[in-house]
């Protein structure tokens, strides 16, 4: 008996200790959270009164984190631009890496209440939660003191970035006032010429051409659509509907968002896609392959037509590879294809929004948020962007145009591409100002002799950016994953992925229709309507915001 009693006492003791230890640690963080939150309010109110901070007047030490699995932030000072900033402006930034698991890293930061000074992440629920917890500094007080962001992003874009409390917490990256994008079609010109360069404008032309390729070059993939068949989704643009509708899992109809599985254009598009796949004109590995396998096929010249959302980057690399082996081989981008009866100027393979790609936030771990903002604002201005992309004045350029674009010198022209790649020019631009960088790159490219012109810049200017649509009204439609709508869209995403696969593998056109009906029923069972209402409301909210 005594033994047993002692054992029970010991067990109870152990449990108590566990609870005490765990309880203590959590209480502490909660208190800290409160204190920092109140600190936030007081600091942001006093910020406006101080003097304008001159970069370089005192050392500035910051930490920077990019919330992406794939992102590895290079050391500060690795390229000529940041090296110059480090030496002349006494700025040092320490990168914090996601280690390939951004979601976990972010959770750890939240749970331990230990944030980097500047974070680069997607717009959306994470930022809103950080804001509600009082972990972010508002940037409004600095907008007029440091003019670049306001000047280049514009009031309308900044309004779209404002949080529900009316304040601005997000510093955009690659915000833009002109089209951007990367998606489109490319063809293997060697194969194309050998088959007599047939007309390639409509999907019917494409179908005939792919059949011809399959017959004459059995070892070649007629149509490569990238991993997860992302390029196939992009091809819906050819039916006159933005692929964006697929990504938000709802189709625009008037001012409502409606069931995608019931949309007639979507059905038409999938019927076409399924036919191409069934007749083995699309790579049969479309849904199983990795992007490395896709690149391998492109780099060895075994693809006749490529459709991809990152077409420009894939083809840029592939061209270098195949041309070094066979000088006659080449890829060339073509004007986006379209279905019969669709105007070729109404086909948009890419989409952009003026808010850009993602945003930087300044967290309350930053001692002096104004200094951090001053740095970001300088970096996003013409001087900062030019330094980040082409190094300090006197290396690759001695003078600038009236717009601030660099006028390249002989050293730029005589340095090989390989050498420039090694210097990692532009690697640290996380405050991208598209309205400055793209025209500047275009101007440099235009000043080059024909054979030295950069392929990528030419394709972007001549094709891709002309076929990119403005979708600013559709930003911020993703619900918080822990909310009810968030759980619905997660289930709908699962259904979408499964049914997309099943439909592509469908044995007949009739089966495509049946599968779409099944998908629609399954989606309504998991509460699709709630999500459709949510996106409709959010979208209409954006529309009214933009009219202001």
């Amino acid at each position, binding site marked *: 008996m005594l033994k047993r009693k002692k054992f029970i006492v010991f067990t109870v003791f152990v449990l108590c200790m566990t609870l005490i230890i765990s309880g203590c640690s959590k209480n502490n963080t909660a208190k800290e959270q409160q204190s920092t939150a109140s600190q936030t309010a007081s600091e942001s109110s006093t910020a406006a009164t101080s003097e304008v901070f001159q970069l370089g007047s005192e050392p500035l030490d910051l930490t920077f984190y990019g919330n992406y699995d794939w992102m590895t932030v290079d050391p500060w000072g690795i390229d000529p631009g940041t090296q110059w900033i480090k030496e002349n402006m006494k700025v040092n930034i320490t990168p914090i890496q996601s280690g390939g698991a951004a979601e976990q890293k972010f959770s750890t930061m939240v749970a331990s209440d230990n944030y980097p000074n500047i974070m680069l992440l997607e717009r959306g629920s994470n930022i809103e939660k950080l804001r509600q917890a009082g972990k972010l500094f508002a940037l409004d007080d600095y907008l007029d003191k440091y003019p670049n962001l306001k000047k280049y992003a514009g009031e309308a874009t900044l309004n779209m970035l404002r949080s529900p409390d009316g304040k601005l917490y997000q510093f955009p990256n690659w915000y833009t006032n002109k089209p951007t994008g990367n998606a489109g079609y490319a063809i293997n010109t060697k194969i194309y010429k050998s088959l007599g360069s047939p007309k390639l404008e409509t999907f019917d032309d494409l179908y005939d051409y792919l059949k011809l390729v399959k017959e004459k070059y059995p070892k070649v993939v007629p149509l490569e659509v990238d991993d997860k068949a992302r390029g196939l989704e992009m091809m819906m643009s050819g039916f006159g509907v933005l692929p964006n509708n697929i990504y938000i899992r709802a189709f625009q109809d008037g001012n409502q968002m409606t069931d995608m599985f019931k949309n007639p254009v979507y059905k038409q598009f999938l019927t076409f896609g399924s036919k191409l796949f069934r007749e083995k004109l699309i790579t049969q590995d479309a849904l199983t392959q990795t992007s490395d396998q896709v690149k391998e096929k492109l780099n060895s010249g075994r693809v006749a037509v490529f459709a991809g959302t990152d077409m420009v980057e894939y083809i840029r690399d592939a061209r270098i590879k195949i041309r070094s082996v066979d000088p006659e081989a080449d890829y060339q981008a073509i004007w986006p294809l379209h279905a019969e009866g669709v105007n070729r100027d109404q086909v948009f393979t890419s989409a952009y929004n003026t808010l850009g790609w993602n945003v930087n936030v300044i967290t309350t771990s930053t001692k002096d948020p104004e200094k951090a903002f001053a740095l970001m604002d300088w970096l996003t201005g013409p001087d900062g962007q030019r330094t980040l992309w082409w190094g300090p004045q006197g290396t690759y350029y001695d003078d600038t145009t009236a717009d601030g674009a660099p006028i390249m010198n002989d050293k730029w022209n005589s340095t090989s591409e390989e050498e420039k790649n090694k210097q990692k020019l532009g690697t640290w631009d996380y405050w991208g100002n598209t309205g400055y960088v793209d025209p500047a790159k275009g101007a440099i490219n235009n000043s080059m002799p024909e054979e030295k012109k950069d392929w990528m810049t030419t394709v972007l200017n001549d094709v891709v950016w002309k076929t990119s649509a403005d979708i600013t009204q559709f930003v911020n439609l993703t619900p918080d994953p*822990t909310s009810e709508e968030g759980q619905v869209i997660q289930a709908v995403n699962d259904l979408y992925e499964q049914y997309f696969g099943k439909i592509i593998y469908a044995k007949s056109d009739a089966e495509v229709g049946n599968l779409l009906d099944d998908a629609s029923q399954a989606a309504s069972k998991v509460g699709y309507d709630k999500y459709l209402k949510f996106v409709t409301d959010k979208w209409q909210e954006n529309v009214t915001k933009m009219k202001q």
Partner: protein
Amino acid sequence: MKSKAVSLVTNNPIKKKSVWSQFVRQWDTQIMIIPGIICVFIFSYAPMYGVLMAFKNYDLFKGFSASPWVGIKQFETFFHAPEFSYVLRNTLCISMLKLLIGFPAPIILALMLNEVRFMAFKRIIQTVTYLPHFLSWVIVSGFVVSMLATDNGSLNMLLQEVHLIQEPINWLSVPSYFWTILISTNVWKDVGFASIVYLAAIAGIDPQLFEAASIDGAGRFRQIFVITIPSILPVIIIFMILAIGNILNAGFDDILLLARNPILRNVSDVIDTYVYRVGVMNSRYSYATAVGLFKSLISVALLTFANRLARRSGNSLW
């Protein structure tokens, strides 16, 4: 077990002394054990309070204590989820198959290797079979995916060369092939390494037994069944129990990496991949914990059951 321990204590003259004086008497031994106990406590027991998260609606920003209690709502959500039935079925079926095929495979390999008399050959086979164990699943799945590709995949090329098939088969998009691919990849990866322990057990058998058996006229096969297998049976049973305790661990990285095609989800989604995809990736930590806890409870029940059975053979874990 317990009654034995009690009787030992009652016969012991130091019974009346306090726990403390017993401790002091054995201080040298105890000091060696204490760090281990502390480690187990800190790393295995202390984090266990986290399972309470399954009964809360955990909000990362509010912290653990401030998140509201929701009772068994998370469990209900899981039981009513459309995925529940096939996730549970896949978990049980895939782990059963891994047990039925993956468990005997290394034993058979060990028995076969033991019969090889040409040492150099035996060593080469052993090395070749256990090397894949050291490759990560990322690399192995890379091999498998490119081997099974329709475009330049070696398996399709081979089958076409020998005219077994006309058109390449898209192996990794046909749901009915997936379990076979998964199980055989698993066996290939781990059979060599797992056989080491059985080879060691076989090496420990007294050679006189074999000599005696052969004098009595037992052939090679007979020797395997009457000497080798009975001698390594305790090892087999212990590993069997451990394997049953692991039965709901149907695998994670292998499935995640091989079942890239969402069309396979009906046959590939197991509890762990489901927790990762739906819970962790969407920051639904409470839900993830509830599903994980459900899995652990079943595992504990299965382990206890397996141990009961094994106790009859006298080789139980506890």
